[in-house]
């Protein structure tokens, strides 16, 4: 299975399906969807050579809204399914997508190991610091003092820092994007896909229903003041001190992707028998 030939001149619209999103108007996920379609057009891939794999959540509904091959799996396991798919089908462009609950809570273990395994795929998390689909419970990225029905006094727990964790776990490309800038996000996604190995794009994507205050994020985001680094130690320092609203590529490394050989048999199946024959 060789890499498909580039397909120039495709319009982003071609990547949008006729299934209408169920998202709330104003939800950041709409623009992430359009960023993805723009990025894919810019990457000159055809929809049938792209797979969008997700878990469960509002954000995880995204595959069916594209004309790519989609896989809407179970909660938290998008990265596992995407890993299996990419290893088995290295010719495909694989995007794993989903929410902060999906990726950092129930799927947290897969996040660590996907970073570490460094399979050549792109993971896009639409972080709204809440469980949108289940009506507004705190997620690992929720601020400690945000109160909700399940945590009336806030969680009192420190937030999870996905970018730092991705770096520490071995992700090869780390970027933060914002849904208030669809074109910038498209560009970051395109860079992430082009970068070999596991690329992680955290998109600030407001939940206007359960976190209406996040509408203000668009005033808070700003381009990262410094150029991307390939020095993990420097990246770690920057990420640890970052205000959470720096937008751009924050780390781009050179680790060799995990890509086992597939589809090139050296032996016939029956030859495996020789070790059993007496």
């Amino acid at each position, binding site marked *: 299975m060789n890499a498909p030939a580039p397909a120039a001149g495709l319009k982003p619209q071609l990547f949008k399906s006729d299934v209408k999103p169920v998202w709330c108007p104003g939800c950041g996920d709409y623009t992430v969807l359009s960023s993805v379609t723009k990025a894919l057009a810019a990457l000159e891939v055809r929809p*049938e050579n792209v797979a969008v794999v997700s878990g469960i959540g509002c954000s995880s509904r995204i595959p069916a809204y594209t004309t790519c*091959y989609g*896989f809407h799996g*179970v909660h938290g*396991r998008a990265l596992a399914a995407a890993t*299996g798919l990419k290893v088995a089908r290295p010719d495909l462009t694989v995007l794993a997508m989903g929410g902060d609950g999906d990726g950092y809570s129930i799927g947290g273990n897969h996040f660590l190991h996907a970073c570490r395994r460094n399979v050549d795929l792109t993971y896009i998390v639409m972080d709204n610091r809440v469980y949108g689909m289940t009506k507004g419970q705190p997620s690992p990225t929720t601020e400690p003092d945000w109160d909700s029905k399940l945590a009336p006094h806030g969680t009192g727990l420190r937030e999870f820092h996905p970018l730092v964790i991705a770096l520490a776990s071995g992700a090869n490309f780390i970027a933060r994007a914002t849904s208030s800038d669809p074109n910038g996000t498209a560009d970051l996604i395109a860079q992430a896909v082009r970068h070999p190995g596991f690329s992680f794009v955290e998109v600030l994507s407001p939940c206007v229903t359960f976190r209406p205050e996040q509408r203000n994020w668009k005033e808070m985001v700003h381009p990262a003041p410094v150029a991307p680094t390939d020095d993990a130690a420097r990246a770690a320092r920057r990420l640890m001190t970052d205000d959470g609203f720096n937008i751009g590529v924050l780390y781009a490394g050179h680790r060799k992707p995990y890509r086992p050989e597939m589809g090139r048999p*050296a*032996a016939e199946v029956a030859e*495996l028998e020789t070790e059993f024959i007496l």
Partner: protein
Amino acid sequence: MTGEGKGLDSVSIALAGSGGAGVMTAGNMLLEAAAQAGYYGLMTRSSGPQIRGGEAAAMLRVATTPCDSVDDRYQVLVAIDWGNVARFAAELPLDAASLIVGDPAHGEPPEVFLKSGARHAPVTLKDIAKKITGGWPNMVALGLLGGIIGLPYAALRAAVERSLKKGGGALAASLAAVQAGAAEAARIGSSYALAPAPARTARWLITGNQAAGYGAIRGGVRFVAAYPITPATELLEWMAPSLERVGGTLVQAEDELASINMILGASYGGVPSLTATSGPGLSLMIEALGLGVAAEIPIVVVDVMRTGPSTGIATKTEQADLNLAMYGMHGDAPHLVLAPNSVADCLRTTQWATHLAETLQVPAIVLSDQFFGQARAVLERPETVAFAGERLRAAPNAADYKRYALTESGVSPMAIPGTAGITYTADGLEHAERGTPSSLASDHLAQLEKRARKLASIDYGEDWADLEGEGELAVITWGSCTGAVREAFSRARSDGITGRLLSLRLLSPAQPEKLRRALAGVTRALVIEQSFGGQFLRYLRGEYDLDCELTSFRKPGPLPARPDEIHRRILDWSRA
């Protein structure tokens, strides 16, 4: 067992000792030597909980016909030392006709063994080995055992040479030790020599885990993702290099949630995929198995069952994951459950499971168990069968493509990523024919029917079960009990009892019509299984309308089923 004057048709021997004694190595060599000499055989093993240095026992049965079960008694127990070997007493039943060989340097045999009335013949294994530069007591024991059961020296030498490929001094010393051991056998004298070996045929030496792995590859599996767990690990260890050779790969996942979702992803990508695990892992996989059912993605999960619940007894066998495999999933989730009923059948059934999963686009669970998985058997070369995965694929640019189209058979062509013009989203959400999410009652019903219809759409042929004999009595069993039940039943036949033996291979979907025909005219049936609560009995009661009277004979793990207790049970039951 004794063929008058001409030797035994079957002999069971155990070689035990502490870590470092090398009983497993010697046991493996003995099995190979027996195979070289033209015998069939089965080797199982047992060990203490220590990672290194623990006591261990290699348990072999060598016979003139293929053996699918352990025997009732061990004729010979050889211990290189007695350090905590007494723990294996329940696994190593002896009787007055047995022989115990111990090294006086390590004291008397434990009372639990001696009280069987077995003859004790001391042999100074350690001293004998010491006299040979580079000699090991386990090689002396190998020669001793070979001598006791009457294996020719040439066969022992061939087995030693095969495993000590390096040759040189180590080989010469080992062979000298083997010869010294054989001389001891002649000295102590015994009557456990085997009858002459049958005519040579094409044979394999293989474990159930290897057989299942090979069956999967034959069936077309090229992607495996898995998380290590006893007793499935060896299946994975065999598959990793083997898959590489045939153009596939194995990914070690971070946990079972990952492994099952990885294989769903890979199979969605068009590559037949498998994972192997044991009870605790299968429990973690259940949610994603439901996704495989709903999204119609074929996968194979081999559950090498061990003693449960929870961590249970990780290295021992039991048939108690049946409920989980059959009924673990939420929602109405029709899927395949199959169970091999011999080591050789691990190959055939796993290959068949792969074929069925691919054909029906559904997950298949294969219930093997520790007994099969870790048993090494000398068996007749399994016939090559043509089951190969064949998935119905959609053609590029098919007009008005619907992934979950309501076809007559229920199987609808699957679009494989990379195919133009028919992209779709595989979904665990209930969906309409196109795959788009739907919560309409009509779509739910139509898709439920479709998924159920698929499994009923094909004829599973004769492979659904093994049926032997006739009569008004029947013994019904499954999985690794089958070997012991078959042996017990053949003894019962010599006692004048006629009846049928039915061993079910295809557990889901149930085959009520076939079962009805198989049991036509049967008035009473004895259901034999290795679970405490009678899971198989309940399964039969739940899935089939049986009009005969059912009696249950069940025993949990960890000990493998033995023919004698089943034989006695059959006699009591048939005469009741």
